């Protein structure tokens, strides 16, 4: 009974830790929703088989979001002002985690609406992107749990690269001359992938960035790019990650251009 006197109350750590654990579970559920729905779209799974599981997962995520928000209000009421930044960070990123479930559902809808499963070069690109996003979601959970700034920074860079790749693919599809019945589905899929990656980046940014800079990671990604970029190249900062990405994904880019 004397654990009241262990000083836990002085940091408010117990309540905050509980919320962080629940948030981690939200990330896991978001990853599950994304993987399941992406597999359905890419043709690996029958949509009817996963429908119930996916919608239940999304509901679980939404419930967790509301629960965490309630707990944040209680936590902020009970503890001192020193706990406010942590509460505000959680309030912000819990929305990102919730969006993961929503995009899982969007991908699922796409799997139902698409005239046929993706094929050829786009399927390969989407599978590669899906694997990278899924891996980054798992890494995000670990970085968040361990409060690992280095891992989170790497994750932000990786997420930005994924987003740029998705943009590049969308540009290729929109500007591409030959019409394809699957083109709208591809555009939406790349768009959803980009958004999922972006939300993962936002969560990762909570490990690295101060509260007021949450979600704003351009400095991190451009610094990282500057370390790898040859100094003689004079390209605008905004374009740097794209170029870098393009070099890394040269094969894919060539394929898109050929299309």
């Amino acid at each position, binding site marked *: 009974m004397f654990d009241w006197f262990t000083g836990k109350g002085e940091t*408010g750590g117990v*309540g905050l830790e509980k919320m962080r654990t629940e948030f981690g579970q939200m990330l896991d559920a978001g990853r599950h929703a994304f993987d399941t729905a992406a597999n359905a779209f890419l043709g690996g799974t029958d949509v009817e088989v996963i429908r119930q599981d996916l919608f239940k997962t999304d509901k679980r995520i939404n419930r967790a979001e509301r629960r965490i928000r309630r707990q944040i209000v*209680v936590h902020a*009421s009970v503890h001192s002002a020193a706990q406010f930044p942590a509460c505000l960070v959680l309030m912000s990123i819990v929305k990102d985690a919730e969006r993961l479930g929503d995009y899982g559902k969007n991908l699922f809808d796409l799997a139902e609406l698409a005239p046929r499963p993706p094929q050829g070069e786009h399927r390969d690109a989407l599978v590669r992107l899906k694997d990278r996003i899924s891996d980054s979601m798992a890494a995000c959970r670990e970085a968040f749990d361990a409060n690992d700034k280095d891992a989170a920074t790497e994750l932000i860079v990786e997420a930005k690269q994924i987003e740029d790749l998705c943009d590049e693919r969308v540009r290729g599809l929109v500007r591409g001359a030959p019409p394809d019945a699957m083109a709208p589905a591809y555009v939406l899929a790349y768009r959803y992938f980009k958004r999922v990656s972006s939300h993962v980046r936002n969560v990762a940014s909570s490990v690295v960035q101060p509260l007021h800079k949450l979600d704003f990671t351009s400095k991190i990604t451009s610094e990282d790019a500057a370390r790898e970029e040859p100094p003689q190249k004079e390209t605008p900062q905004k374009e740097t990650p794209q170029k870098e990405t393009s070099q890394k994904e040269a094969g894919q880019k060539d394929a898109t251009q050929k299309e």
Partner: protein
Amino acid sequence: MPRLIDTRRIPWLARLILLLLMVYAFLAAIELFKNAIGMIGQGAADRLFSGLENPFAGLAVGILVTALMQSSSVTTSMVVALVGSGELELQYAVPIVMGANIGTSITCALVSLGHVTRSAEFRRAFAGATAHDVFNLLSVTLLFPLELATGYLRHGAQWLVRALPLEAVGGEFHSPVKTAVEWLAELVQSCVQRPLGLGEGKLLAALLAGMAAAIIVAALVVITKNMRVLMADRIEQWLNRVLSRSGLLGLAIGAVITAAVQSSSITTSLLVPMFGAGVLKLEAGFPIMLGANIGTTITALLASTVTGPAGLTIALVHLLFNVSGTLVFFPFNFIRRIPIRLSEKLADLALRNWIWIVVYLVGVFILVPLAGILIWR
């Protein structure tokens, strides 16, 4: 104002020792206060408390003093010392204790004003905060005349005291706690008396009473602040459990939190932001407030450990009064809805025109009691 001591930075062991010391200081101050009042002399004491012979005046004093002190614990523990000293009769003390219950709810209402710039949020916060006030006002409206007519609280408390084995040794009250704090009270008295060369009389009594009152307030402030920090995580867990539930669990949690932090204002004020944010429904928060009313009686009971059976009787009156109020308003949903509905109506009025907030706060807690004292004393 800069803080002299940041209570959040004190290590737990030091905090524990500090807490024990403050409880000890609180009890010693009660003993000192009791002795000081005893020094005034029967005639002077009679004149001092003669105004309280009218129960309405006693009620008004209880409301006003507690509203100004923002702590019913201070009022009730001093009343316990006064009754324990034999200078204030039990029947005159009962209305003060009832008034203290009303006066203490002003803190919660004041906290809700922090939400005043956001109307929907303010309505919820103000309704939540004033549900406590309305309940206390209704309890007094119902039980005060009943007590005047029957004396059921006094008789009930006296029966309980007689039933307790307090007079086992030589027919007198022997409290080990009283024995433990007596020497300190005597030491303080001699430290004041000798250098000033004062004999036992009104001046020394006033000095000692003032000193004791200051120590009681200071000790309760330190106890409350420390217990709040030590209990914060536990309080958070408990409140999370009752967010969406109403009933006995909320009642128990309200009582336990308040007994631990020794302040019903702390418990009820914690609920206000939750009401405001809408995460705590009034129906779920109301039992916590009723529990807080019961839990806050622990301070008077603690004080009574050094004052003897008379002090214990008024402390038990406080407990029985709050238990009675809970028994009237808690068990049946349609009765429970009355204070909740009234507080929501009050919040609607406050939302329509801020003047109602001023009328309510200044009127109920300051002007009416002040007028009552002037008229009825």
